C-alpha cells in the first residue's frame, strides 16, 4: 500500500481532534445538579405539594410558565386550579418564587448545568440579581 501508514496515522489524528470535546467532557463531567427545596416557606408547608407533580414540573415548567403569562397578560385569567383542587395565582413572582425563594440553588443550578439562559430574570425578580 502506497503511503498507507501516513493515511492511517492522519485518520487517527483527525478522529482524535473531532472527538476531543467529548473526551475532555468525559474527564470533567459536571455532577448532575441537585435542586434544593430547603426554603423557609417550603419547610413550613404541612403538605409539600407544587402546582403539579415534580416529574411534570421538571419536564414542562417552561410550557406552563408560557401558558400562565399568556393567560394573565392577554386573557386576564389569573387563577390556576391544580389537580388536587388547590387554587393558585398564576404568578412567577407571587407563586413560584414565593416557595422557591432560593433561585440560585433551585432555578439557576439546573439552568447552568443545562446551559440555558432564560430571560425571565431580566424583568422578574430583579431585586436579587
Amino acid at each position, binding site marked *: 500500500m502506497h503511503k498507507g501508514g501516513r493515511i492511517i496515522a492522519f485518520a487517527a489524528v483527525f478522529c482524535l481532534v473531532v472527538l476531543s470535546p467529548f473526551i475532555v467532557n468525559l474527564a470533567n463531567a459536571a455532577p448532575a445538579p441537585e435542586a434544593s427545596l430547603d426554603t423557609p416557606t417550603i419547610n413550613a408547608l404541612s403538605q409539600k405539594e407544587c402546582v403539579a407533580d415534580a416529574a411534570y414540573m421538571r419536564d414542562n415548567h417552561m410550557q406552563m410558565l408560557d401558558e400562565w*403569562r399568556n393567560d394573565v*397578560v*392577554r*386573557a*386576564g*385569567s*389569573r387563577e390556576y386550579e391544580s389537580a388536587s383542587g388547590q387554587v393558585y395565582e398564576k404568578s412567577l*413572582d407571587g407563586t413560584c418564587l414565593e416557595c422557591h425563594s432560593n433561585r440560585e440553588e433551585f432555578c439557576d443550578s439546573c439552568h447552568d448545568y443545562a446551559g440555558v439562559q432564560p*430571560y425571565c430574570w*431580566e*424583568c*422578574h*425578580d*430583579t*431585586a436579587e440579581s
Partner: protein
Amino acid sequence: MPVMRRRDFLIAGAVLGAAGLGLGGCSSYGGSAQESAGGEAGRHWGFVVDVEAFREKADLDAICEACHSAHNVPRIDNPKEEIKWIWGEPFEETFAEYANEHMGESLRDASVPVMCNHCEEPPCVRVCPTRATFKRADGIVEMDYHRCIGCRFCMAACPYGARSLNFSDPVDYLETVNSEYPVRTRGVIEKCMMCADRIDKGLMPLCAEASNGTILFGDLNDPDSEVSRALEESFAVRRRASLGTGPSVYYIVKGGEQRA
C-alpha cells in the same frame, strides 16, 4: 376557437392580482384593531380629570410619583430617552385647538395630567406587527412586554406621545425596585396600563387613588358611575378627539370663577 391575445392575458392577470391584493390587505387591516381579550366585557374604564385642580405642580408630582415608583418607571433626565407613564403638560400643548391668548390664569398655569388615553380605536394596536399591544374587552389598551420587539411603530402611531422606548436598561436608572411589579428591559416599549392588574383585583388605578378626587375613575358605560355623573354635570373635552381615536380620558374645564 377564440384565442386570447397576449395583451388581453396580461391585462386580465394584472386585474386579478390587484383584486387579490386589495382583498387580502383589507381583511388583515380590519382584524387587528378589533381584537379584544381579557377584562370584563361590557365595561369601558375611563378617567375624568379636573383640569383646574392641577394648578400646583406638587399635586401632580405626588400622583406621578405614586405611579412611577409602584411600576418601576425609571427617571431619566435626557428628554430623548425619558420614560413616562403619567406626566404634566401645559394647557396650550395638551389642548392646542382650545388654547387662546385670552384664557384665564387657572388654565394658563395648569399642568394638565396626561397619560395613555386607552382609545376606543387605538392606532398603536392597529400598527403593532407582533400584537404585543392589544385592547381588552373592558377598553384598556394593554402591553404584552414579552412580545414587544421594540420596532416603535406604536410610538409613531400614537398621537399623544404616550409611549416610551427603553433605549438602555431601565434598571440602571431605578433607585429602588418594587419587587411586586416586574421591570422592563432594553428595547421594549412601555406606557400606562391603567393598572389593569389592580382593576382585575377590584382596586382603583393608583393615580386615581392618589389624586384625592381630582382624577375620577370608573365605568363609562355605567350611567351611575362616578365618571358618568361627572360628565353629565360638566362640559368635558378629550385630547385630539377629532382624529377619531376615541380617547377614554376626559378633561373637565369649568372656568376659574366658578371655583373661587
